């Protein structure tokens, strides 16, 4: 039944490409849809996994990679921390199930982020547990890179800023 999801996602991207001429518009649309899905998916995830509260950004990222990705997409990305401040992480996917049936991007769609939905989902889910983050694709196999890499940058929470000022 994962095939159903992957095929449906493909049909969705194809339809969006027909509706919107610019790649950025399709990317934005996918991100927005992903966000709406993410804010609901987090409930389903927490109900199914019953994980305890994460105490750090690093723990949260591990949770996303090892539990969530495994549960919904059946793959476990590698996690790597890419900043000394401890708030920038990368999820590295050797295998991306969403592109199972995609061979390559068509020439006129070179800047399409095919899996942008994933970024939106992660962003939405994190926001529902009160963690603001920016999520983008750093590398994409479909565009010729060796792996697919998703970068998560945790932004400072509003409360932290308040404390700092006092």
């Amino acid at each position, binding site marked *: *039944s*994962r*095939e*159903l*999801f992957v*095929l*449906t*996602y*493909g*049909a*969705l991207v*194809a*339809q969006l490409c027909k*509706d919107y001429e610019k790649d950025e518009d399709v990317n934005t*649309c996918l991100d*927005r*849809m992903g966000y*709406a*899905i993410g804010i*609901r*998916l987090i409930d*389903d995830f927490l109900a*199914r996994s019953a994980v305890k509260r994460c105490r750090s950004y690093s723990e949260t990222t591990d949770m996303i990679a090892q539990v969530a990705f495994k*549960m*919904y997409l059946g793959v476990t990305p590698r996690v790597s921390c890419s900043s000394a401040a401890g708030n920038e992480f990368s999820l590295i996917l050797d295998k991306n199930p969403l592109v199972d*049936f995609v061979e390559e991007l068509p020439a006129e769609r070179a800047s399409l982020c095919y899996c942008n*939905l994933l970024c939106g989902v992660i962003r939405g889910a994190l926001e529902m547990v009160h963690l603001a983050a920016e999520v983008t694709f750093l590398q994409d196999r479909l565009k010729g890179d060796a792996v697919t890499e998703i970068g998560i940058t945790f932004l400072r929470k509003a409360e932290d800023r308040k404390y700092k000022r006092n």
Partner: protein
Amino acid sequence: MADEALFLLLHNEMVAELYRAAEQGEGENGRCTTKLESMGFRVGQGLIERFTKDTARFKDELDIMKFICKDFWTSVFKKQIDNLRTNHQGIYVLQDNKFRLLTQMSAGKQYLEHAPKYLAFTCGLIRGGLSNLGIKSIVTAEVSSMPACK
């Protein structure tokens, strides 16, 4: 299973997105339903290919319909069709009393007017599957009381 939740959310989001775009632009509701149906068509074609790779040739139309009701429906919606009726002249009615995509919505007459939007994709799914098995068809859906649908 977790996959189902993911598909359900994606499907609902797709319906919402297409209708949102239509409200802002000049498109009317009819076009959205067509878009959803054609997406379902493509997916149905792909799915039926994968499911019937190893199965034997179908004897006749009824056999194909039974396959759709049992195996196809089970792999997509994790349950079989509850009732299949036919007039033996080319019309088949598939009845699902607890249609997966509608169970979360309501258990009765509430939101009945929105139900067709959520069935468009599935109609396309069936039409795509049938078309790849060599049958040209028209698929329509009817909901009288959620979550049952025909």
